[in-house]
């Protein structure tokens, strides 16, 4: 008899857990659903009480206005392109530079190697927010104020990326490298033909982390970019939200446009997104 009781008790908690998980999932998803439905509604519908969850008509005008901008300049298209270019170049640079450094630190022995490693790792303790003002001055001195170089070059490497690649490459089989050496491959050739093709999983994780960081970045572009043409998506949205003529629907349309590439990337590379949050992030992240 008590066994039966225990069983009932356990199934009640089971049901409670299901309910809690589902209710919480709904609460987490509501703002996302709100963004997408509101982006298809005229402003008047969005601010009605209660909120009509299903758009009456597919009001595409919001998307047109988001792209067109309040001044009809279609600058958003350019800003989207900028975000892609900046994020892509930074990601490619990070992958290449972090892996070659990681390789140099993992597979070669020379004087001062450990010192270099420790110095690089110690920069993980410097938060970007603490060095942004002097970095801004450095950029100004270099004459990179208001250029793409300012957005890309200071982020071409991350200490965390070097750490990730070094940890991975330290277990890389030496036999493969030596075999290539015996075949007469140059050291640079070995890196490109043997090391890089065999390091896809950590490289993908690093790529996803870097791309997302750049896609998200607001503070630094806010400091260094002034020309509307050179802005990235977050800067455009901040500006768009401030403008008086922006209606709520168009704002949500812009937000949805900014989110869609990341959602597609997530669905394609879920494992690297979720795996990536497990490599404990540090440094500029």
């Amino acid at each position, binding site marked *: 008899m008590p066994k039966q009781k225990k069983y009932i008790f356990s199934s009640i908690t089971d049901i409670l857990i299901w309910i809690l998980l589902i209710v919480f999932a709904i609460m987490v998803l509501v703002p996302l659903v709100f963004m997408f439905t509101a982006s298809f509604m005229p402003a008047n519908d969005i601010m009605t009480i209660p909120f009509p969850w299903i758009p009456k008509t597919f009001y595409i005008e919001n998307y047109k206005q988001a792209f067109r901008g309040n001044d009809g300049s279609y600058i958003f298209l350019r800003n989207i392109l900028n975000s892609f270019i900046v994020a892509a170049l930074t990601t490619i640079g990070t992958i290449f530079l972090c892996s070659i450094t990681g390789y140099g630190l993992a597979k070669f022995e020379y004087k001062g190697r450990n010192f270099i490693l420790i110095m690089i790792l110690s920069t993980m303790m*410097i938060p970007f927010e603490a060095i942004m003002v002097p970095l801004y001055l450095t950029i100004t001195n270099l004459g990179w104020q208001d250029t793409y170089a300012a957005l890309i070059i200071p982020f071409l490497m991350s200490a965390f990326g070097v750490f990730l690649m070094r940890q991975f490459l330290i277990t890389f089989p030496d036999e493969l490298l030596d075999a290539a050496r015996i075949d007469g491959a140059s050291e640079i050739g070995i890196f490109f033909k043997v090391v890089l093709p065999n390091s896809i999983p950590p490289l993908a994780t690093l790529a996803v982390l870097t791309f997302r960081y750049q896609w998200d970045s607001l503070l630094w572009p806010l400091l260094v970019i002034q020309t509307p043409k050179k802005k990235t998506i977050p800067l455009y949205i901040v500006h768009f939200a401030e403008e008086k003529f922006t209606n709520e629907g168009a704002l949500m349309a812009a937000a949805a446009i900014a989110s869609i590439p990341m959602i597609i990337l997530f669905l394609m590379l879920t494992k690297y997104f979720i795996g990536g949050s*497990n490599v404990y992030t540090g440094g500029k992240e």
Partner: protein
Amino acid sequence: MLACVVRGVIFIKKKTGIDFIKKKTGIEKKKARWGFIFTIPAIIFFSIFSFYPIINAFITSFYKKDLLSLSKPQFIGLGNYKYLIHSESFWNSVKATTIFTVGTFIPLVIMSLILAVFISSRKRFQKFFQMAYYSPALLSSVVAATIWLLMFDPRGLANQFLNFILNTPGKDYKWLTNPSILRLATILVYFWKYIGYFTVIFITGIASIPQTINEAARIDGANRWQVFTRITLPLIKPTTLLVSIMAMTRCLKTFSTQYLFTQSGAPLKPIDVITLNIYNTAIRDHQIGRASAMSIILFVIILALTMIQFKVSKAEEVQY
């Protein structure tokens, strides 16, 4: 006898990695040189973009320096730090940052732990829940803040929801104007954005606990609560500590939500977090010296937290 010596040498060589017998040949020297060449870009990069700025921040924090003026910066010793100690705006930022950090990271760690334990206990839909909770982390912080900005509108969903739950029809909770509620609003945005991120980390931590331990406990008659408090909780303690510090450092660096909210007309004072203050001091007030002093203070705090994080990750290996 000889074989013994050779075996001994090989053993020591394996243990220490030191070469006794072979001298470095030409090829190996060449190889070593390549290793160094591969790290040159990193040495240059981190010198320019990490070490130089932090040293520069440290030096600038002792000077009175204006962003736009061309005159030579004036050395004022600890003047900037003294100014900050007596500055109301600085202490307000410390308060705003502390309230935000404590108010965000504690609920974040507790809730993500609970959700992770619940999701891990499910046999089905684990992946679905992980993805659903994780989805806000995909949005950029600006987008997240924009969505919530509309939801916190007097006619928006936040009021509608509270009015429904608390049965207070038509009441406006003044999300973006009342100082305390505004603080809560920024906390909510952050909580929403990162809850799934940390849940996923906890789920991995829980998944690494061997099933056999749980099963053994269940056979011994332990109930779920006992399994949780006596087995799961102690074994994921390192993950919990790590997540706490990660969440804390992230909260200390928060910027986007507060920036967007104040730009859209919310009062600055309650949510003038330290990064926002640094930004405004440098860009709006042109006080580079003061901004640098604040940066150094932020650096020291985060450095202390990161040190703890490294210590914890070293002790991370749990013996099952």
